[in-house]
């Protein structure tokens, strides 16, 4: 009984972290107008920065701020490329390449070994509680604050927002910063609860992609993306409970394929033909 309870508790914690990670990708991708794999670099970079600064709360704050700064730079670069004719597919390739650069720079600096933040850091910050608080705060900000309303308006129609005199570029940079910062928080909490290593970038990116695409199928809203992430966490935990071996990436990849295939889009040439 206690084993099952521990399993459910572990699954709930995983679901919270996934919701946080998926929200970060959602905001960063909304800002950059393509699925932003590069944001995964904030997830792995932040724990290493915090570790370099002695695993203190101050180190964590610096790591989150650094991730936000990287997010703003990435958003500027992606806007520049889009203005110069880069298509969504090319931006996606740039995003994956940027993620690979960061991942390998970390491998060069620290080796591809797992790290965990020290126990006093964990005791101070309570990763699961903090993840829950951040998720609730994010939902509240999305619903009730001016920044949230601007973000939702950007999601509906950037053109409409621009016609109302809102500086769309600034909103996008703010969103990218928030997305990268959320992923940095996710990375810090993940490293406090378990282990993080540079090669996790792709796995985290795929988790974000599944939640992003499944979420978009159900209304393209933050809550939908969070729920999709929670569902994905549940599916992975259930899979690991019933099946032997490490099938986690297969499950994520298959879910991504299924989501992409089921997604309805009028721009599909096949749809046009039929």
């Amino acid at each position, binding site marked *: 009984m206690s084993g099952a309870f521990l399993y459910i508790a572990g699954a709930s914690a995983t679901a919270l972290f996934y919701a946080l990670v998926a929200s970060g990708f959602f905001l960063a991708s909304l800002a950059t107008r*393509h*699925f932003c794999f590069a944001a995964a670099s904030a997830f792995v970079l932040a724990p290493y920065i915090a570790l370099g600064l002695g695993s203190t709360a101050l180190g964590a704050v610096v790591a989150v701020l650094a991730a936000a700064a990287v997010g703003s730079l990435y958003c500027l*670069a992606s806007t*520049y*490329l889009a203005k*110069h*004719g*880069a*298509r*969504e*597919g*090319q931006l*996606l*390739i*740039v995003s*994956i*390449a*940027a993620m*690979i*650069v960061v991942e*390998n*720079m970390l*491998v*060069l600096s620290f*080796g591809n070994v797992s790290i965990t933040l020290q126990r006093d850091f964990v005791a101070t910050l309570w990763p699961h509680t903090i993840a829950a608080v951040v998720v609730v705060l994010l939902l509240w900000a999305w619903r009730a604050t001016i920044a949230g309303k601007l973000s939702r308006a950007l999601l509906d129609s950037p053109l409409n927002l621009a016609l109302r005199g809102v500086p769309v570029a600034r909103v996008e940079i703010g969103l990218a910063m928030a997305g990268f910062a959320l992923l940095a928080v996710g990375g810090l909490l993940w490293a406090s609860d378990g282990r993080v290593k540079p090669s996790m970038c*792709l796995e985290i990116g*795929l988790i974000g*992609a599944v939640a992003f*695409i499944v979420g978009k199928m159900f209304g393209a809203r933050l809550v939908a993306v969070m729920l999709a992430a929670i569902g994905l966490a549940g599916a992975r935990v259930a899979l690991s409970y019933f099946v032997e*071996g*490490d*099938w986690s*990436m*297969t499950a*994520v*990849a*298959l879910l*991504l*394929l299924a989501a*992409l*295939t089921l*997604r309805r*889009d009028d*721009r*599909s*040439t*096949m749809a*046009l*033909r039929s």
Partner: protein
Amino acid sequence: MSAYAIYLVVLALQLAMLAQASDALGGHGGRVGVSSVLFATFGGYGYAFATVVAGVDPATAILLTTLGALAIGVPLGLLLLRLREDDYLLGTLAAQLGAVELINNLPLLGGPLGIRNVPGFASSLWGGLLVVVLAAAIGGYVLFRMLGRPNRLRESLHWLRDDAPSAFAAGISQRAVWMRVVAAQVAISAAVGMSIVIVQGYASPTTFGLSLSIAFLTAIYLGGTGASPLAMYLGAALLVALGEFVRSLDLPASWIGPFQQIVMASLLIAVLALRGRGLMGPKIEVGPSASRLE
């Protein structure tokens, strides 16, 4: 010619062939993706399984693997093409990583250790060279006939890419065009996969990972996406030369791999930022193929 020089030639040819096979759909068909690595995985593992586990001789194994890859790869490739244009890259990436993870978990295919002691022809290096040169000669000729000069198939593919509704209205069959391109892509990629496995002497899940995808995407964008298939040889040769330059630097052994990855990914970003169509890629204007075909 030293064995190492032959190895570099084989490497450049492998990358060029993967780039050609992918750019047929990416640059010419408007569907940039990494499905070639998936089909190369089918080829590599199919050959290793046939020779080592089933005990088939190498020549028969190549024939059987090519036919098997076509039987599985063409329907799968057409299914993936149902994804919308911007989702295609994500979808093929998911399929590639899913397949690698699947192989990683199947004891029949050796799991994480892969299949060892894969036989080739004469020495493994010469066997790999033979397969990749044959694939380059036959596949390159077929692709050049299809896409290297103006013809009905190329114009139809470009028309579908540039303006699908008007192409449908003109009676162009998207399925027929795509099927021919996908069949060529699958056969060439499977041959490259076999060549990789023969040169290495083993089939391993890590061989067909993300780094291979990034390598041939860099070769495509360096050579010129949508250009003549011959441009991919330039991109692949430059990439291999760059890798060798990094290797020649006086770096610790454990740094070379990650450093090569950083250089390659940075180069890909730089090419996409500064010259999106690559060194020899054409400027694409709206609707030129349609007017030419009409």
